[in-house]
């Protein structure tokens, strides 16, 4: 059994805006072992990015509030760390790759210097400048960019190359945990596969754990050991990749997600997306959050929170399964 690297316990995040309180993440639990890759899957607005930002304590200071829970990283609660201690962890122990590579690099600083900055911030051994720049070259080559392009600016790079630079920034200090927030959605389909494959190789080589945030089940199937399905700020199903992709037992929402992937084998007139919309996170429904869209909804679902059903690592939060047992 792999030791636990990150444990999220009962975490809730609320955004307080002028108009309303947005309940973005609601009492989620998640564990990540060393060298594991976990897929965090869900529709837009499910609270995936919010979860990731909460781990790094990068939620917008005035609006985003963690209202309960613990985030244990190697046994220590990140929520109890000082700002200074958190800065020591960001980039060095936990790194994040953001959704859009087009905007995540500073347009007025060369890519080399942006990688160098990461190294410099955590240069506790006081390595000399040349050595750090040599490492910048190595990192660029590692992600498949010729080192001579170190002095180029982000606008001279394509989207895929920018994302490679972002990845090399994230990996610069060899973090134990990498959070990749939809690293490929902004890229061309052909480049998506390349970048994903590269990320996977690097992660294996550097023995990094990874949280792969995506709404693409194909990406999850390619890269993840375990999968967490998120809906309206809750993790409604969790399991090993086999549990999610091969088992017959699923949360109705997960079944719906699979249904929305066009299947070439089955003759279908149209795609089969889940009807309805994600509930408004400022006014979440009672009971099971999915009940307004669920075809199998029962009376109890409308009033009572569904219990968690477990079988091995597989967890489903739905009344259907508690009935069976």
């Amino acid at each position: 059994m792999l030791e636990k690297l990150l444990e999220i316990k009962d975490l809730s995040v609320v955004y307080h805006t002028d108009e309303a309180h947005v309940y973005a993440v609601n009492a989620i639990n998640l564990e990540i072992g060393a060298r594991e890759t976990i897929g965090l899957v869900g529709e837009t607005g499910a609270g995936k990015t919010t979860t990731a930002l909460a781990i790094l304590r990068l939620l917008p200071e005035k609006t985003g509030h963690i209202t309960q829970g613990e985030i244990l990283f190697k046994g220590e609660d990140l929520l109890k760390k000082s700002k200074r201690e958190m800065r020591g962890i960001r980039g060095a122990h936990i790194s994040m790759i953001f959704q859009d590579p087009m905007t995540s690099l500073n347009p007025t600083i060369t890519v080399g210097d942006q990688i160098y900055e990461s190294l410099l911030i955590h240069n506790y051994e006081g390595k000399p400048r040349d050595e750090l720049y040599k490492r910048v070259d190595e990192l660029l080559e590692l992600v498949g960019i010729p080192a001579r392009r170190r002095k180029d600016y982000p606008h001279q790079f394509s989207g895929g190359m920018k994302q490679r630079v972002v990845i090399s920034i994230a990996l610069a200090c060899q973090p134990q945990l990498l959070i990749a927030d939809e690293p490929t959605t902004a890229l061309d389909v052909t480049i998506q596969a390349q970048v994903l494959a590269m990320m996977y190789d690097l992660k294996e080589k550097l023995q990094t754990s990874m949280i792969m945030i995506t709404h693409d089940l194909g990406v999850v199937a390619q890269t993840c050991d375990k999968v967490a399905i998120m809906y309206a700020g809750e993790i409604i199903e969790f399991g090993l990749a086999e549990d999610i992709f091969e088992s017959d037992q699923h949360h109705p929402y997960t079944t719906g997600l699979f249904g929305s992937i066009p299947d070439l084998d089955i003759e279908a007139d149209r795609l089969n997306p889940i009807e309805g919309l994600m509930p408004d996170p400022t006014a979440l429904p009672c009971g099971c959050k999915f009940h307004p869209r669920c075809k199998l909804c029962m009376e109890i679902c409308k009033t009572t929170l569904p219990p968690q059903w477990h079988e091995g690592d597989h967890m489903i939060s739905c009344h259907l399964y508690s009935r069976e047992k």
Partner: protein
Amino acid sequence: MSRYILKRILICIPTLVAITFIIFTIMSYTPGDVTRMILGQEATPEAMKELAHQMGLDKPFFVRYANYMVHLLQGDMGVSYRSGQSVFLEIIHRFPITLKLAFGSMCIAIAVGLLLGILAAVKQYSILDFFGTALAMLLASVPYFWLGLMMILLFSLKLGLLPSMGSNTWVHFILPSITVCVGSTAAILRLTRTTMLETIRQDYIRTARAKGQTEGKIIFKHALKNALLPVITVIGIEFGSLLGGAVVVESVFSLNGVGSLLLQAIRLKDTPQVTGCAVFLAFFFMMIMLAVDILYAYIDPRIKARYQNS
């Protein structure tokens, strides 16, 4: 890049021609007679006619204008009606004072405007932000001449701290510089706050935070450089309004700069001197704007690339 600069300098020429034409027209068709100004109230009509003939004032407007332009394009701004001295030399002689005033007030405007603008943005909705925004509004609405007079009343007459006239030492420039800079300070403050607020919401700022960078470095290394671009343009434009403000403020504080020279020349209908001053100030302003563009390219690599390609 150097081709771009040359192109920009050549573009100045039509602008300058337009400026001279407008000023020449205004000076020609406003009432008042130079010959009377020179010869005094007692002058006989014959003497005035004689002088007008000597000065070429009896020729048609277009001939006079063409004449002036031919000389100007050869670098000759003519001689002042009032003093008989070269217009250019008179300007050059007085320019250092205007320049000191403009630079002094620009420095204050940039220092105060940038600093308060950054603080207001970083501490949005705080007391500081409120104070900065209120100050900007107040400064933007104060007229120069009124503020100048009030400051003379307070600091020179009441408190006796600072001189109200003259230009011998830098102390003499304190009150006039503060007076001229208020409008520009307000403009720079407001714009810095806005662009800074926008910049600190950008994704690359979040990337920098995710690296573990400190807030100070994030503001000054990552955000400021990007937020500065629009601010620099406004600083250039404000330089123009400073030169304009100097015209008024120089006379309030009895400074012998190009501004007071211009006012004096207008009063005497000294057309070559007025046109000369205007052309000079306009050209100076255009060079500042060119410098701003070059600075832009220096800060933003994307713009530099565009210049090099064109």
